């Protein structure tokens, strides 16, 4: 148990320290890089609780895809962060409010699990014993077997959102040369080449 506690404090400390660096570092790219460290350490915390599937998915989705996009945007856009930072006190009350709400909710969740430790067993889908069923299989049970229709509906919502984003941003510009691969492949000498007999001294 001692080693686990040691690792917990290591991951938690690094996560919180880098979370602080995210908001305090001057360079936005450094901020994103510190954010990645936060994600990585959170994955470590997931591993410690035995949620290995969630840990790996956190790595794949948040670090492998979302943070790459963040980094892309931050590197590409020339944002004047000194100007953004100048009004930071103006937004402090809103930030404080959000922080208070999240803090209160965290206290509620942790408090309820302290007050009734077996709450996890009384919910609709009890968490199975990790020794009997891997948590990948357990999550699959919940998502794809018991609540498959809800899962499908959320998939539909995401699909609609994706189509909406494409419709909003897609501009089909005219007069742009495009490569049509199938047309290119379908070309034959008959359609592409014209043999002309040129008389000497006349040209075409």
């Amino acid at each position, binding site marked *: 148990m*001692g*080693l686990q506690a040691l690792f917990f404090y290591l991951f938690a400390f690094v996560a919180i320290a880098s979370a602080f660096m995210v908001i305090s570092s001057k*360079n936005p*790219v*450094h901020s994103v*890089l510190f954010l*990645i460290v936060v994600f990585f350490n959170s994955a470590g915390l997931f591993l410690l609780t035995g949620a*290995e*599937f969630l840990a*790996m*998915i956190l*790595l*794949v989705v948040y*670090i*492998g*895809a979302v943070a*790459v996009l963040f*980094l*892309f945007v931050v*590197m*590409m856009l020339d944002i004047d962060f000194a100007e953004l930072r100048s009004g930071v006190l103006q937004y402090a009350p809103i930030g404080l409010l959000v922080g208070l709400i999240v803090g209160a909710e965290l206290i509620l969740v942790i408090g309820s699990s302290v007050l009734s430790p077996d709450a996890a067993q009384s919910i609709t889908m009890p968490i199975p014993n990790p020794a009997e069923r*891997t948590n*990948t299989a357990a999550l699959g049970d919940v998502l794809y077997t018991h609540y498959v229709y809800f899962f499908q509906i959320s998939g539909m919502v995401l699909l609609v959102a994706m189509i909406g984003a494409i419709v909003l941003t897609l501009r089909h510009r005219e007069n742009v040369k495009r*490569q049509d*691969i199938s047309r290119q492949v379908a070309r034959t000498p008959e359609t592409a080449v014209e043999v002309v007999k040129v008389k000497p001294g006349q040209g075409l």
Partner: protein
Amino acid sequence: MDSFFWTYGWPALIMIGQSLLLLVCLLVFIAYVLLADRKIWAAVQLRRGPNIVGPFGLFQSFADLLKFVFKEPVIPAGANKAVFLLAPLVSVTLALATWAVIPLSAGWVISDINVGILYVFAISSLEVYGIIMAGWASNSKYPFLGALRSAAQMVSYEVSIGFVIVAVLLCVGSLNLTDIVMSQQDGLGTKLGLPNSFLDWHWLSLFPLFVIFFISGLAETNRPPFDLPEAESELVAGYMVEYGSAPYMMLMLSEYAAILMVCSLTTILFLGGWLPPVDIAILNWVPGIIWFVLKGSMVFFMIAMVKAFVPRYRYDQLMRLGWKVFLPLSLVMLIIVAFVLKLTGWA
């Protein structure tokens, strides 16, 4: 204190020993894979390739290593120094970290975790950071363009690789790499009434996915014909332009470690890992690691040949191939595999 040592200290020592052994073997293997890459490329072009250092140029990679180590590392004045030096370290650490879960033979694995394939997928999706950081920190145009290209390319091809892996996992029913290999002991061949052989491995039953995985693997590791991040004719050397000496060597090392990773993943997912090609006594006496290395080397030979005779893709063609061809194809294949498994009850 004594019990603490036997519960934690001793296993940790064993694991460190195993990791060191694996790392040393891997690095020596990478040295020769690098040489093989150059030799194969040269042979296709009717050249001799490296042939001066040692017999047949066998020590060329070690000579290169000494050269890189003894050169002076140059850091550009405008570079972001910390990130510039961190980038090669990140790449090399991540590229070598994936090897912790690769089973080289039955039971020959440092960490036999439940979600092995996901771990490999997650860590290799992080490898893009080494490249982005290198490109951004150099604070120069070509590296930055190379890094942007690479980021878009790796994220795009990861999607189809993910679908291919999911299809294989559907056939296996486990995310553990050892289970994936063992499940290939019987398959299509045994269903047709043949004895256990190479026909049972997934390459035959999932052939289109095998092809997609191989090509996406090339794109994922920035190998020709998808080496746009370092296209020497346009970007000089892409994200590696500003690097020299030891940091450059680390970037190269991580690239080749990632390529070998793709080779061994192909071997594990599609070519039956350490299983012998035909289940007869003589072949079963050969240690599994030899089959594994042979299969991996064969995949690497194909990758090296592709480098030698396929011209480089244009960037829009690369994106088209990833999003408009491989993504729908792998998605449809995934659905077909799922339906076949469900209807025939093979899974």
